[in-house]
Every structure is written in structure tokens, then in C-alpha cells.
């Protein structure tokens, strides 16, 4: 009896060991069923062909919740609960990499980084090591009602490669001709604070990560431009996200300048099909100002605590980091625009978009993403942005730009101490 028991036990152990060898499960946290979860599941299908022994298990966790869980696990040192792959907002990259050194797995040499837009890679680079596979594109663009432009005697070309001053001139004429606002943004102009600053190749922090606000020519020009926009009357300042979306869906506003992911919300207004166009964003009229920037976007990271980190990186590099076909599939079904530059050569990207009057929108957006200035994000991106938003509010209320920015500089220095 004892022998039989021992035999059974050995057999069970052996089977268990074989099972473990054959089957690896990679757990992934991400949050949007129609977007990144969909893309992840498609990637799993591609990888099944390459390595059939690996199963990808996607768990739906909200982006803020992913961060809370990572903070709890990494601060307490109890990292067993972390998955093998997490999707992370680009804005948070530096914060997690710098706060928890060694918590993430560097991918240099394992992923072919030459094929990605450099502005994306830099958001997850720390001490010269690269820690993420870039995913969705946050390249900024001007999305505009071409029919409104026509009524005022302009075309999409008139809005391309222009300065913000020119944009305001055109906006005033559009408002005169159509009676609608030229542009919509959320009150506070928070999106523009970061987009404009980056478009002039500056950020809220200098190379060493110190706050660079009151002596920063781009920040100064950005604040002055926002004040001009505010005073011009061409901007609808929406109180919240819902009103923001509603303003272009119901035609109250003729354009929005945003990360390219906003397309998903623009095409909701089916009655406006054919009336939209896409072009690059206006530039700040200072040295180094260009018509390209980014807003939002996310990347895949692998926690160093993962027991399958090599397989996880192999999976990422062979799907998100290597397959042009894969990017065609996810673009068609979910509108997930890649940061993987070769994907732009694929057939789905060359497809004319009926909602945008046949414009090859995705190809255009991809061509912008290669030109986005590479700025070094800091740990306190959101905090700095919010302080500048407060400063702008103060300028609206009569403060001078210099005084308001001095206040913002000391406020962010105080936070960082």
C-alpha cells in the first residue's frame, strides 16, 4: 500500500513537472476591451503560432488601478501579486522607474528599438536602460471640420504648418462665417499646456530633472498663446470631458487638437461623415517650435518580479515589436494606431478613411509621429502641469505672466522637496 502511494506520488509530481514545463501562463493587466485588451488578445493569437506552449491571460484592470496595485506591491516589497506584463501610461513611466529602481525588467538587446518613434522610447528610459515596448500612439493632430473651413474660404492646406497666431486669425473668420467656435478644449487648457510645450522641444523639467518653468521660453510662449486663445473668443471651454466630446459631436466647435486616439470619439457622430480632415498642429512662434507633439499614449512594461520575464519580453518583441501584419489587424478593428514605424507601410494604414473624406489619416498620423520632439519627461509631470494651469488661471485674472510662472516654479519646487 505504501509503495503504491509512493508510486502515485512520484507519478503526480512528474506529471506536474511536465505540465509546468509545457505550459507557461503570462498574465497581463490592461484596461480597454475595445482597444488594448483587444490588441493584446490579437497578439496572443500571433504568438500562439510562434510558441504554442505559452498562454496569455488578460485581466481587465483600470489604468489608475494598475498603478495603485503596483504602488502597493512595490512599496511593501510584496511583489507576488504583480502580473508578467502591465500596460502603463507614458506620463507615469518615469515616476515608477525612478521611484522603484530595479522593479522593472530592462529590455535592451531583446527588443528592436530602432523601429519605434524615439519620443515614445524615451518615456521609459532610465539610467540609459530601456524598460518598455511602446504601444499606442499619442501623436497630436488638428482634427477639423473642413466644411466650416470652406464656409470661411479656407482649405485644410491653409491650416497646415501654421503658427498659433495664424490659427487664431483663421478661427476668427470661421467663427464669423459659421457662428460656431473654432476650437474646443477642456477649461483650464491642461492638454495644451503639455502639448504646446513639447512642440517647442521643451518640457517642465531640465535635463537633470529640475523644474524649468519660469525661465523656460517655451512655457512662456505657451502661456501667452493660451491667453491669446482665451481672449480671442474662438475657443469653447468645456467644463468636463462629456461636454468636450459633445461640442464637436454636435457641431458647436469646428476642431479639436488632441492625441490621435480622439478619433474614436470623433467618428461617433455619424452624420458628420466626410466633413472632417486631419492636419498637424499649430506651432509656437519661437526658435525650435515645430508642428508636432504628443498627448497620452501607453507602453508595455514587465515587472522584474515576474517569473516568466524572458518569455514575456520575447512575446512582446515578436508581436508588438516585430509584426507589421499584426498592426494592420488591430488598426482595422480597434483603431489602435501604432508607434511601430514599419507598420505605416502596411495596407491598412494606406486605406483612405471615409469619415475623413477619403484622407489617408493613419498614414499621415504615422508620418507625424516620427517628427515629435523628444523631450525628457520627469517624475512630477502632472503636478507641474497642474501648477502651470493654476498660473494661467491667475493670468486670466490679471496677474502678469512672469509673476504667475514664478509662483508655479516655487510651488513645484516645494512639491519636489
Amino acid at each position: 500500500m505504501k509503495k503504491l502511494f509512493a508510486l502515485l506520488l512520484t507519478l503526480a509530481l512528474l506529471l506536474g513537472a511536465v505540465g509546468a514545463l509545457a505550459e507557461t501562463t503570462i498574465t497581463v493587466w490592461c484596461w480597454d476591451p475595445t482597444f488594448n485588451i483587444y490588441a493584446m488578445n490579437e497578439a496572443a493569437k500571433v504568438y500562439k503560432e510562434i510558441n504554442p506552449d505559452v498562454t496569455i491571460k488578460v485581466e481587465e484592470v483600470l489604468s489608475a488601478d494598475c498603478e495603485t496595485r503596483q504602488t502597493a506591491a512595490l512599496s511593501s516589497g510584496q511583489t507576488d501579486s504583480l502580473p508578467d506584463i502591465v500596460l502603463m501610461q507614458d506620463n507615469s513611466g518615469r515616476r515608477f522607474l525612478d521611484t522603484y529602481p530595479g522593479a522593472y525588467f530592462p529590455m535592451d538587446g531583446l527588443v528592436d528599438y530602432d523601429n519605434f518613434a524615439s519620443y515614445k522610447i524615451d518615456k521609459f528610459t532610465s539610467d540609459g536602460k530601456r524598460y518598455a515596448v511602446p504601444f499606442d500612439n499619442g501623436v497630436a493632430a488638428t482634427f477639423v471640420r473642413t466644411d466650416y473651413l470652406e464656409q470661411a474660404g479656407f482649405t485644410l492646406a491653409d491650416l497646415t504648418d501654421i503658427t498659433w497666431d495664424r490659427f487664431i486669425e483663421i478661427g476668427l473668420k470661421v467663427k464669423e462665417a459659421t457662428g460656431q467656435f473654432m476650437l474646443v478644449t477642456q477649461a483650464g487648457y491642461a492638454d495644451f499646456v503639455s502639448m504646446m510645450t513639447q512642440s517647442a522641444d521643451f518640457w517642465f523639467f531640465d535635463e537633470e530633472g529640475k523644474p524649468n518653468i519660469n525661465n523656460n521660453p517655451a512655457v512662456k510662449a505657451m502661456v501667452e498663446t493660451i491667453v491669446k486663445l482665451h481672449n480671442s473668443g474662438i475657443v469653447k471651454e468645456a467644463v468636463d470631458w462629456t461636454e468636450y466630446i459633445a461640442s464637436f459631436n454636435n457641431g458647436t466647435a469646428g476642431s479639436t487638437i488632441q492625441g490621435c486616439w480622439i478619433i474614436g470619439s470623433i467618428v461617433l457622430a455619424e452624420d458628420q461623415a466626410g466633413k472632417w480632415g486631419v492636419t498637424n498642429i499649430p506651432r509656437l512662434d519661437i526658435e525650435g517650435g515645430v508642428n508636432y507633439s504628443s498627448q497620452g499614449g501607453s507602453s508595455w512594461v514587465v515587472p522584474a518580479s515576474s517569473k516568466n520575464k524572458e518569455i514575456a519580453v520575447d512575446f512582446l518583441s515578436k508581436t508588438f515589436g516585430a509584426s507589421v501584419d499584426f498592426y494592420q489587424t488591430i488598426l482595422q478593428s480597434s483603431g489602435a494606431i501604432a508607434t511601430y514605424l514599419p507598420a505605416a507601410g502596411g495596407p491598412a494604414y494606406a486605406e483612405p478613411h471615409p469619415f475623413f473624406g477619403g484622407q489617408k489619416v493613419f498614414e499621415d498620423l504615422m508620418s507625424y509621429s516620427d517628427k515629435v520632439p523628444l523631450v525628457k519627461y520627469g517624475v512630477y509631470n502632472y503636478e507641474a502641469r497642474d501648477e502651470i494651469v493654476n498660473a494661467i488661471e491667475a493670468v486670466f485674472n490679471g496677474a502678469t505672466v512672469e509673476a504667475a510662472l514664478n509662483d508655479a516654479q516655487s510651488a513645484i519646487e516645494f512639491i519636489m522637496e
Partner: protein
Amino acid sequence: MKKKRRLVIRPLRILKHLILILVSFVSAFPFYWMVSAATNNTADIILGHIAPGNYLLQNWRTLTESGRIGPAFYNSVRNAVLLTISSLFISSMAGYGFVIFRDKWKNRVMGILMLSMMIPPAATLIPLFRMFSQMGLMNTVLGFMLPSVATVFLIFMFRQAAQTFPQEIVQAARIDGLGEFRIFLKMFIPVMRPTYAAAAIVTFMNAWNSYLWPLVILQSPEQLTLPIYAGSFRGGYVLDYGAIMLVVTISTIPMLIIFFTLQKSFVQGILGSVK
């Protein structure tokens, strides 16, 4: 003669009613909008469509497609019920003890407990997470319950209530030979029913709405709770407001049931019970 009363116009009363109507509208309208939005699609909701629409079934399908709403609902009910029962029992025993038994330190202990109320929960999150994951209580109901099973607020509430509880009853029961635990069980609990009802509503609501702690301690998808599930709908670049409103509507149902069944006692309990 009496009929004349009808003709008297009381401007003050009209004003009072106008204010009350306005206040009821302000508090009831968002509730109405939530329910009606659950029957509309996102585009209509964004454009401010207020009347009920006919997208209820479609929104319902969005929710049921993932197969997560059922388990999430079950988990939330289970967690909230277990926590409410155990926390009421333990906290009321503590509150009772603070009043009935004599000890020269008890007021100081209560003072320290009250001070601990001022620590924000976020500050204790990481130490708690470390403790509980080391104890192997991740993804267990026990792990969810333990940190909030004895809350200072409830202890304080029961302590206040116990102060109105006649000591004579306790003494009479002791003389008749009833043990201390049974005095609590047979004398205190029945008399304090309104306080229990009020405490039950508050505890259930807190457990039902709790987000941060379940998020880190109940990480496995099998342990998903309703608030976290509802939250998952606001993650995308494009938000499905119809589905969000439906899941929010569904998640208010248990609260409504609890509140309406305990409503009478709740008001009494808050007012201070036992006269």
C-alpha cells in the same frame, strides 16, 4: 366657518414648499437621469438626451457579454453582508464594554481610538497590504474584512447608545444569574435594535462602496467587486456611458432595499433611540 381657512394664503408656507420642491428636484433629478441614461446610448447621453430611450437591452448585453457582472454582484453582496454582520457584532460589543465595565483607563483608550480616526486610510494601505499578503490572506474574504471589522466610528456610536441603556437592567440580570455575554445578547441587542439598524446601513454602504482596499487585497479576477467592475468602464479612450449608467443603477439596488427595509429604525437610531 371652517371653510374660510382654505382661502388664507400663507406666503411663508408657499416659500417653504417652493424651497422643498427645489431641493427634492435637485436631489432626485440626478437619480432619474442615471436611470434614464441606462436606457440610452452614449451619443444620446453626451448630447444631453434626458428622456428614457430604447437602448436598455443593448446596454444590458454589453454588461453581460463579459460575464463579469454576475460574479461581481455576488462577491459584493457576500463581502458586504459578512462584513456588516461581523463588524456590527464586534463593534457593538466593544461599545457596550466601554460603558458597562469599570476601568480607569477606558476613557484614555477611547481617546486613542478616536485619534486613530484621523489617519487617512491611504496612509495605512501599504503596511496593511504587506501584513495581509505575508499572512497569505490575499484574495480571501477574511483579508477583505479584517481591517474594517472593528471601526472606531461604530464603537463610538454604540458607546453613545449604550450610555442611554439603563444600568439597572444589567444589574437585575446579574442578580438573576445571567452571564455577562448573555446579558449583552439577550438584553442589550434587542433594546438597541434601532442603533443596530442605523449602524447596519452605514456599514453596509461603506462595505458596498469600498474601492481602494478590495482593489489591492482582492486582485484575482474571481474576487472582482461591483465598484471596481463599474470603474473598469471609464478606462477607455471612448466611454460607454450607457453601460456605465446601467451598472451604476444596478449597484444602487441593494442599497435601496437595505435602506427602505431599515428606514424607520434608521431615523430612530440616528436620533438617539431608547427613551
